[in-house]
């Protein structure tokens, strides 16, 4: 149980808090679809 708790805590520390309203940037490619996809 001790080891398990340590892993869980470490995992929590790895998470970087995102500011409210954060939108991840779109992947650089492929680009947006202008009409529709076939």
């Amino acid at each position, binding site marked *: 149980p001790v080891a398990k708790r340590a892993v869980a805590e470490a995992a929590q520390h790895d998470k970087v808090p995102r500011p409210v309203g954060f939108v991840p940037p779109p992947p650089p*490619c492929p680009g947006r679809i*202008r009409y529709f996809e076939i």
Partner: protein
Amino acid sequence: APAAPPAPLGCDDPESEAAAEFAVNYINGHSHHGYKFALNRVDNIRVVPQGPNNDIILLELDLLETTCHILSPTPLVNCTVRSFTNHAVEGDCDVKLLKVDGKFSVLGSKCHSHADSAEDIVRVCPDCPLLLSLNNTDVLAAVTAALNDYNSQNPDGYLKLLEIGRATMQHLPSNSMSVEFAVAATNCTAAEAKAQVEACQLLPEDQSNFGFCTATRVIMPTEKLQVDCQLYGHQPGVTYSQPGQDTS
């Protein structure tokens, strides 16, 4: 320390869009058959620096067929992309551009087009028209009948077939075939063509001497043919239906 290399271009970056627009204009400007294509998506872009202000740009483009024939003077921006329900055609292009001091030139391009899957269209829209093969004998017969009808109703000139652009069949609300074809004006009247069609020569290769026709042949429940041709050098064309039928 050397400066960090610039971040790779994204497919939607303004510079990518400018390169793609240049490439699409080049592709349409160098095509002599079919329809104009519009940009649907930049699939990929890669920049290979050659020196200061000198790059090679490799583009992968996804295009869609418009309703404007390649000979039409309508600017691409005013052309309508053919809808999914009208059996869309996609073009995939690889283009190699050179950009020197902000100016593009094309080093090479390779495109191929393919129609959307008929099964996909039927799944979404069972009654939508589907593309037919251009060398289908019924298609050839419909185009010939349509052009003959148009020529017989316009005796001052005589149009020759340049190419068939597309043909579709729709079963509802009626059993009908629609065809689209490009035409060219000749130096003959209809009477001269009737006497000796081989003597009719195409007028000089000026855009105003080309035109585009659409025709619908209803097969069931009753036979009916409607033809509409527009010569690019003239005002919007006359629509003609067989005698006794509606004319618009």
